[in-house]
Every structure is written in C-alpha cells, then in structure tokens.
C-alpha cells in the first residue's frame, strides 16, 4: 500500500458509512461514486438540524422558523452559485440532472427547436442526456447528430464544424460516466457558439470531480445532481445564463412560481423561481449547500489531483491482470479521464464479477451504466466499473485487485 498524504484519512473519518463493516464483517470498499457518492457527517447533520430546529415552508411564512428556513434555502443557492462561478439568480433548484435536462428540453427546446434543425450530442451520452432530446426531436421534427468516439472512447472532433452546421443545440457530458472521458469543452463550446448553437453541458460527472467555472466554460446551461457530490438525493441544479432563463416559459406551473394569478391568467415570477413550482426540497437544498462547503474546503483542484493519482495507480495495477484476460476500456491516460475505469475479466460476466467482489465488501457497478447505445457500438454486453472519489485510497484499489484474484480463482482463470 502506498502512503497517502494524511488528508484522505481525515476525510474518511468524516464519512460514517465508511466505518461500518458489511454483514460479512468486511471493510466497505466503496468504488461506485459515479452512481452516487457517500455523505459526510456535516451533510447528514444539516438534514437533521433542518427538521429538528427550523422545518417550515419557505417564501411564505412570516414567523421566525419560516424566515430562517427561507434564509438558509436562499443561502444554499448562493453557495451553489459561487461553487460554479455563477450568479444566484442563474441557479435553478431541480431534483437532479435528469430533471434539469428535461426542463431545458421542454421549456427552451419547444420554443426554439424547429423541423430541420439539428441537435448535436456525443456517442458517450448517459440516457438522461439522450432520451429527452430524442423526444424533443420527435416533437419538433429536428434531427439528432452525434460527435463520434474512437475504439478507446476518445472523442473524434475532426468533423466538428460539419456536425455543427445547422445546429440549434449542443448537449454533451462534461465527463463520461462509463469511461471517464473528459470532453474538451474549450474546443467544443466556442465552435458551437460560432455556429450559432446553444450549449448544454451535462455536468453530472463534471461538477463533483473537476473545478468548474461556468463563465470560463461559457456554457449556456450546466446541469448536475447533489447526490453525486456529497449531497442528498432529490436535489440538483440547473444553471442557465440569465438572459436565456429570462426568456424561457415555465416548465411546471402552480404555486410558488407566480407573480399574480387571476382566474383566467397568470404572470410568472422571474427566474430562478419561475422554474421552481410547488414546495421545494428545502432540507436537501440546504444540505447540498453544506456539501459544496465541504468540497470547497477540501479544494476542487485537490479533488482532481487525488483522483488523477488514484486512476493512474489503478490503471497500473489492473494492467497486471491483462495477461489473464482483463480488458480495460476507455482512454488509458489519467490526464484525459476522470476517476472512472470500466473493465471485464476474461469470460466472467460483469454481474458475476460484481457479486464476487461484493462478498469482499467491494462495491462496483456492473451493467450498461445507462449508456446502452455506447455499449452496443463497442460490442460490450456489460462492463464492471470502478469509480473514485475523495474518500478512496490506494488501499481500496489494492482491495479491488485482491477481489479480482478471488474472482479469477472462482472461475478457474
């Protein structure tokens, strides 16, 4: 085992779940943070504090705890805005990335996309950044195009300008959840804008793992989920440039998003509240604010460097199994991927592999990772996927390799 810098040990101590052994008495080796991250004590405590001390509905109560709930809720919005370099009025609370993308597809998409327009995605998209655009294309008669990837999951940008011709919208993952590939936004966004397209970046795997500045990226929309970045489930963010949000019609409608309602007619609030119909996920939004406080404290450049180091170590250790039929998918360069590695061991199906690893307390994902078209294109039935976050160490990767030894033994490899 390689010694870590001590910071990781302190971080680990902040995550109660990592101290709980599995039912077989094994240490929990959590390598599935791309699916959802674990939560530090401070985030869990924020949820408890909200319900124990100041639970009240926001934006309407006049009494003390309602005022506190409203203030904390709006303070969390400011924290999220600061975390991504945005203005608070550009941060819309949603349930998750999927809802954020649907909001844009319906509100912005219905208003702007017409028959014959093109929508450009990539071949690495998660279903959440693919299916809403398929439906928008069906509603409008628009055409979907895809930025291709090569056999190792690297983007091929040679024909980008041709792909952008006639494009109204580009929607692309900042980081692939299956292969970890980081999209070179510094290339794609300016060229998309030059072609007159609006750019939505699916940041579900970007915001948790990379320093993100939406103004520097110049994304028009940027979407992400709290649960993948130390926050609770049920809360996420749609960032949108104010000028765009301002011109967009509501997606959901009802209470809380109105200025004046008459029986026949309603005028709507300004963004972001125009897009936040009904009672919000108050406690979760506030706890999400605490989660980004925690990430800010740790430092996003440190997060990126920590994961880069772990990824390099994992690639090196996994390579030791290649002689026994381990296939590693995706780019093998830690500088161009985030902390995600997809693999298969010889003829062991990914689900069987994950089951055997589970007996050792090791949590990996197995399957298509919500990227079925990519799996089909690459000819992979399923892959196992290990993904890393701030609380992982080289010891976790060593445990994974011990688990692979066990699987190889069971399957007689």
């Amino acid at each position: 085992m390689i010694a870590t810098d001590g910071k990781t040990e302190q971080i680990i101590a902040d995550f109660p779940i990592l101290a709980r052994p599995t039912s077989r008495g094994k240490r929990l080796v959590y390598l599935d943070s791309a699916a959802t991250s674990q939560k530090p004590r401070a985030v869990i405590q924020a949820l408890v504090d909200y319900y124990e001390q100041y639970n009240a509905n926001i934006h309407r109560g006049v009494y003390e705890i309602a005022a506190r709930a409203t203030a904390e809720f709006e303070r969390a919005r400011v924290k999220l805005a600061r975390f991504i370099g945005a203005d608070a009025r550009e941060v819309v609370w949603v349930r998750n990335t999927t809802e954020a993308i649907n909001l844009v597809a319906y509100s912005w998409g219905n208003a702007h996309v017409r028959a014959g327009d093109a929508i450009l995605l990539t071949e690495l998209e998660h279903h959440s950044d693919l299916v809403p655009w398929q439906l928008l294309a069906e509603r409008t008669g628009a055409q979907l195009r895809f930025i291709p990837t090569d056999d190792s999951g690297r983007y091929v940008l040679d024909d980008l300008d041709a792909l952008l011709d006639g494009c109204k919208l580009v929607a692309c993952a900042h980081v692939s959840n299956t292969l970890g590939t980081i999209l070179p936004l510094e290339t794609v966004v300016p060229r998309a804008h030059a072609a007159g397209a609006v750019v939505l970046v699916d940041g579900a795997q970007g915001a948790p793992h990379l320093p993100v500045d939406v103004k520097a990226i110049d994304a028009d929309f940027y979407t992400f989920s709290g649960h993948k970045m130390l926050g609770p489930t049920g809360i996420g963010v749609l960032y949108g440039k104010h000028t765009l949000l301002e011109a967009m019609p509501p997606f959901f409608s009802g209470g809380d998003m109105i200025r004046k309602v008459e029986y026949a007619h309603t005028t709507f609030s300004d963004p972001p509240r125009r897009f936040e119909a009904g009672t919000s996920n108050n406690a979760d939004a506030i706890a999400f604010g605490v989660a980004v406080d925690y990430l800010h404290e740790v430092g996003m450049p440190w997060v990126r460097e920590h994961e880069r180091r772990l990824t390099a170590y994992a690639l090196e250790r996994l390579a030791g199994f290649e002689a026994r039929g381990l296939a590693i998918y995706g780019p093998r360069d830690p500088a161009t991927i985030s902390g995600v590695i997809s693999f298969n061991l010889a003829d062991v199906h990914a689900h069987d592999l994950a089951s055997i690893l589970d007996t050792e307390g090791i949590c990996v994902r197995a399957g298509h990772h919500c990227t079925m078209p990519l799996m089909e294109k690459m000819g992979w039935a399923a892959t196992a996927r290990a993904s890393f976050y701030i609380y992982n160490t080289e010891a976790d990767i060593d445990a994974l390799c011990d688990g692979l030894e066990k699987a190889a033994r069971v399957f007689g490899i």
Partner: protein
Amino acid sequence: MDDFYRDYILDHYRNPRNFGHLEKSDAQAEDLNPLCGDQIRIELALDDGVVRDVRFSGKGCAISQASASMLTERVKGMKLADVAKLSKDAVLEDVGIGISPTRMKCAMLGLRVLRSAAIGELAGWPDEE
C-alpha cells in the same frame, strides 16, 4: 454468494446444454433483464402437448445462463401444461444453492421466458369442452 459459483454452475455457463436454435419450433419466447442486459430466447418443439425438444440462446451472467441451461434439461418430456406451471422452487432446486435477492432476477429469467412460451402456446389452443 461466492459459494454459488460451483463447478457444475460454471460448467453449465461455459458449456450450455441445448444451446442454439431448433430447425422448427412450435412455441418460443424471449425476454431480457434490462438491468444487466441478460437475454434469453427459448424454443420448444412439441409432440402431442409434450416437449419433445428444446433450445435456448442468449447471453448474460453465469447465473442467468446456467439456470436456463439446467431448465432446458428439466423440461424435455414434460407436458406443456406442466411447463406453464413450473415454479421458482424448481429453478432453485436445480441450481442447488441460495441466490442473493439482488441476483434473483437473473436466476429466474429463463423460467420467465420458458413459461411465457408455454402459456402463449396454450392460449392459442382451442378450449377443451
């Protein structure tokens, strides 16, 4: 769960019995488990309401493929009406060891396909007076 991967399970996984297609089948069905992408197709040849021959095809984990393989051995010679009524317990008896709840869907995929082939075929038969 690691106890599950016994030699005979791995043998059925790597050397599946009755694997492939029938030249002519009387009943067939296929299905997939969208969670993990396991796929199974089962074809039955019938003789007077009795399963004369069977083939399965598909891909997936050792649990789904081995349990389907064992199932095909069990149904040869069975009455189609009994095939339609085969229970979960039959599969569990074949595989011989407890399956964890998260993998139960994999183990039961073959059974689900087999029963739907049988029920589909029976539904097309004229009612007996």
